[in-house]
């Protein structure tokens, strides 16, 4: 874990504390469950990103372009 990330986490904590202290609406869900859902959404995004990176499209050349022609018909 880099020191910049640690500083970011501390800043996040300080922003949350300050928002509660000053009565300002916090720019995050005020419930722990809501914040956990944000983390879960990001995790799902990253999982799908890894899946797509591991499984590149193998039939792209069969797909039609803007004109509807496939690579097969163009060559």
């Amino acid at each position, binding site marked *: 874990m880099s020191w910049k*990330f640690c500083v*970011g*986490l*501390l*800043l*996040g*904590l*300080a*922003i*949350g*504390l*300050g*928002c*509660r*202290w000053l009565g300002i609406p*916090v*720019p*995050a*869900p*005020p*419930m*722990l*469950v*809501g*914040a*956990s*859902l*944000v*983390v*879960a*959404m*990001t*995790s*799902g*995004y*990253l*999982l*799908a*990103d890894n*899946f*797509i990176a591991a499984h590149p499209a193998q039939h792209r050349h069969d797909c039609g372009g803007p004109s509807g022609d496939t690579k097969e018909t163009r060559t």
Partner: protein
Amino acid sequence: MMQLMVGPVLALAIGAGCRLLDIPLPAPPKLQGALLVLAMTVGYLLGDHLLS
């Protein structure tokens, strides 16, 4: 209790669906950003606990 189990699964599905369909994600696309959101909420709850 059931909702607490359905929520994370739904959130994972939304995240994966957004990536697969190339739709902008309603959350930070980096894990560090999501953890910063979590840290903000924890700070807010900590402040709530300290003030009460």
